[in-house]
Structures are given as structure tokens and as C-alpha cells.
């Protein structure tokens, strides 16, 4: 990329907004995911019996819905990111490209 274009993009307010918003959003979601997963792994490592408690008196244990919930939660988190990125972030990107053309 030529240095004048770099300069132009860098000083564009929409670009700064895009970078700031997306970084915060992406890292927040990533940390939420890491926290959820490692909380689960630490329970598996340190207190496996707690996942083996019965859910409602039957055979199904608490560990089953928790495990399935992490799978569903991962999918929902990616959905949330896609939804915001494909609307808000892509619109900002379009504005940046328009402005520096």
C-alpha cells in the first residue's frame, strides 16, 4: 500500500471508529468464550463429581446440559459477531473505502 494512502486511511475518523469498535467487540467475545471454556475445563479437572450430580432426580446429570450449552453458546457467540460485523462494521468499512478512493 502506498504511503499516502496509508496516511489517508489512518486519519479517517470512520477508520479509527471501525478499528476501535471491532477490536473491543472481538476481544470481548473471545475472552467470554475462553472464560466459559476454561471454567468448564477447570471444573472437569478439579471437581468432576459436581458435573455428575443428577439434574432432576433421574439419570441425566448436570454435566450433560452444561456440555450441550457450551456447544450452543459457541454457535450463538459466532452468530452475534457475524450479525454485527456484517452490518455495522461492513458499513463503516464501506465508508472508509469510499472516503479514500
Amino acid at each position, binding site marked *: 500500500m502506498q504511503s499516502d494512502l496509508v496516511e489517508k486511511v489512518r486519519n479517517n475518523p470512520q477508520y479509527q471508529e*471501525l478499528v476501535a469498535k471491532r477490536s473491543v467487540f472481538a476481544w470481548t467475545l473471545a475472552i467470554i468464550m475462553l472464560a466459559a*471454556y476454561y471454567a468448564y475445563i477447570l471444573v472437569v479437572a478439579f471437581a468432576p463429581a459436581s458435573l455428575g450430580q443428577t439434574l432432576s432426580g433421574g439419570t441425566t446429570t448436570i454435566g450433560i446440559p452444561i456440555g450441550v450449552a457450551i456447544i450452543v453458546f459457541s454457535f450463538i457467540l459466532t452468530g452475534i459477531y457475524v450479525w454485527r460485523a456484517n452490518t455495522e462494521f461492513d458499513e463503516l468499512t464501506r465508508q472508509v473505502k469510499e472516503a479514500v478512493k
Partner: protein
Amino acid sequence: MRYLSVFAGLASLLWAVSALAAGEPAVGPVEKQAVNVTAIVMFLMFVAATLAITYWAARRTKTAKDFYTAGGGITGFQNGLAIAGDYMSAASFLGIAGLVYSKGYDGLIYSIGFLVGWPIIMFLMAEQLRNLGKYTFADVASYRLGQTPIRALAACGSLTVVLLYLIAQMVGAGQLIQTLFGLEYWMAVVLVGILMIMYVTFGGMLATTWVQIIKAVLLLAGATLMAGLVLSQFGFSFEALFTKAVEVHKDGIKIMAPGGLVSDPVSAISLGLGLMFGTAGLPHILMRFFTVSNAKEARKSVFYATGFIGYFYILTFTIGFGAIVLVSTDPQYLDAAKKLIGGGNMPAIHLAHAVGGNILLGFISAVAFATILAVVSGLTLAGASAVSHDLYASVFRHGNVNEVDEMRISKIATVVLGILAIYLGIQFQNQNVAFMVGLAFAIAASANFPILILSIYWSKLTTRGAALGGFMGLATALILVIIGPTVWKDVLGNAEAIFPYKYPALFSMTVAFVATWLFSITDNSDRAKIDRAAYEAQNLRCQTGIGAEGAAVH
């Protein structure tokens, strides 16, 4: 599209023929070692369809961009299916179902570990890869760094991962096909090798992607059907299924909670790290982000892939429990010693017979074979790209290479890798290869992932830091696996392992990140100044996609 309708017609015709053949009365209980006609007919249908696709793809694969990335015109939904297909290997279908069958809940812990890498890829890497890369992940890692060392390192990382994965898949293919189809081990390995060479050399990424998509649809459909048939026997109640499973399993209620698989905290965390970040360093997966046209499609791919993979793991879990109830209690699936016929990977296959008779058994067997074929094709293409695009074009020819030569090298590399895979597959026939996929993940997490993520996000990264850090991560992962329990004790037969943990990622990733950091911040060379100064321009392209590779117009 015309070709696809021809394919659909052909497939349904062959299906009808095979259904007729399968309709003949079966003689007594199925002999697993005997030639399985239904499975072979269905598998031949799949091969015919995929060869038709390869023919179609070959006519559209003209440039290097077509060969490496299918022209960059795959949609997000298609790519999501293809990524899910790469991930849903026979190892994860049969292996995780087998793990659930023997250990119950522990299978779910593995599944979750395999899945949670995807959101991380989505948030931190998917669109960045798309915006910065061209054909291989080394394009991204070496974007602003010294080409020769970083490309060489990335190619080593890719090839090691690809070869380990290939050996595991080939040995798995041989053993599976021996049991399922009654073919000789070596014949199965040679067949897989030849078909994969054909798909990749003639059809490139376009054929590889469509083979993967078709297989993903078949596998998802087959697994859904099996899980549905299992649940239908329990009034669609998981509680009823679990209760019956606990009743018949030798470990009883223990199968409903985490067991001995991850016993100590260090192993648990190390395994978790390896699974999560290994995914983000697998070359054949990363390569798929270059087949879509822009960042938006790249994001959609991960969204769909995460959905399909998550759904698939829930099915696999159900299938594993179904097999506990329906397979472990049925003497026709057990040998004289009450062991499962065909070994620990077979519960899902036997379950197909238990719930759907010979037709479903044939279908699932054919799908399992197709899965191996599709996964090894993707792996081989990733390996060939590392040889031709990274080693040949960038390291040996310093970028002074024309497209025709580069394509020729990649096709030669494909054939060589294919032959190597056949050879190693036969050599490793009687070896324990279970550790190889785990090792591949550990290397991907410790060599490929650190240099990739740091090159995208850390402005102070230098060529020296990345090269030394990546190399040390690779070496540490390799050494720790060799002196750890899986190789030192189980493969080499020593009494005690030198390194006590099975999963090296916690240590090898730490080594990689610390070394990369240390050798970068202390780097005062001229090259380091260039590396740091180029970060801003890289970041602009990464953030906005200005200057990124577009889709080829067909």
C-alpha cells in the same frame, strides 16, 4: 449446474440399483469380514459422482488461483460446509462415537474442545486471514516479515502437520476398509491414495471443496438418521436412553460424569489449549479462508461451520450412547471374548446395522470411506501448496516464478505426497498411530498458531523472533510428545515416560510465545526495523480489506 443435475440423476439411479441388490435376503447375521456389496455399490456411486465433479472442476481450473483457492468464488455457506467436512473426519466421527461408547461423558469433553476453537478463529482470525492472504497461511505469517525464513518455517510446520494427519488417516482408512468392505489393507490404502491424487491434481481446490461438501452433507444426513432411529427406540427421551445405557454399561453411573480421561489439572488445561488453538493452526483448514470472495463470506463460513460441527458432535454423542445400549448387548457384534468386532472405532458402524439393517450399514460404511477420501484430499492440497507456493516459489526462486511452473510443481508435489502417503500408510499398518492426530494439533498450536496470531496483532514482531519462536515451539511439541507417555511408554515400550504429561501444548505454546517475544524485542537488526515499520500498512489492509485478493471472474 448442468453437471450437478447429471450427478443427481446418476446418483439416484445407482441408489435404486443398490437398494435392489440389498433387497435380496441376507444369509444369517452379517459377516463383517465378507465383501459388503451394499457398501461397495454405494461407495462406487460416491466415487463416480466425485470423479464427474473432478472432470467438471478440471475444465475450470486454469490458473494458480483456481488451483489453490477454487478461484476465490466459493460462498460462505458452501465454505462452511467444506470446513465442517474437513473437521468431521472419520477419526472424529468413529473415534468420538467410540470414545463415548467406552467412556461415556468424556467423549463430550473432547467434542467441546474441538468446537471451541471456532469462535476464537471467528473473532480473531477469519477475516484477517481473508484480507491478508492469498493461497497459504504462510502468506499471512510472512506478510511483512523476511520471506525466506518465515516461509520455510511455515512450510515445515504445514508439512509436519499434514504428514502426521495423513498417516493417521491412511492407517485408519486401511483398517476400516478391511473390516467394512472385506478388501485387503494395502488395496484400500492404494485406492485412497490414487483417488486423492486424481481429485487434487486434476480438479484442484474446486474439486476438493465439492468432494468435501457432498461428503459433509452425506455424513450429516447419515448421522442425523442414526441418532433419530436410536432416539425413536426410547420415545425420543434422552433420559430413557441414558438410564438404559447406565444399566448395561460396565462402569454404570460413572459414564454420566467426567472420568479418568483427563485426570489432573495440568493435562486438562494442556489438552484444552492444544485442541482449541490447534484448530487455528491447521493448514488445510486455514487454506479454506482464501476460497471465499471477501471478509463477509469468511465470517459466514465460520458461523455455518460452527453450527454444523456443534450439531454433528451432539449427534455423535447420541450415537455413542445408542451403541452402548444397542451394540454392546447384542452378541452378533461381539467376538468370543465379548470384545467388539473390528475394535474400538466400530460402535457407530455396528450401530448403523443395529438400527437400519444392511442398507444403513452400507451407507454409513461408504460415507466413512468417503470421509477419509475427502479429508486426505484437503490435506494433500495443503501440503502441495506449502511445497509449491511457499518452498519452491518463495524460498528457492525468491518469487521469480511464473504461474505455469508453480502449478506444475504443485501437481508434482501432490503426486509425491500421494505416493508417500501410500508408502507410509503401509509401513505404519501395525503401529499405534492414535497419537499422531494429537501431535498434529500440538504442533499446529505451538508452531503455526503463535507466529500467525502475532504477525496479525503484534506490531513489534520481527523475522528473527517469529523464526526462532516458531521453530522452538515446533521442536518442543515434537520432543515432549516423543519423551511423553504416548510415544516413550506406549509406542517404544519403556517402563516410565521421561515427561509425565500426554498433552504438550501448555508447555510448547508457552515456549513458542516467550521465545518469539524475547527474540523480537531484543532484535535490533535492519530487518527488524523494516518488519516493525511495515505493520501499519499491513494492519490497514487487515482491517479494511483495501488491496486484498478478490474473486476471479468466471
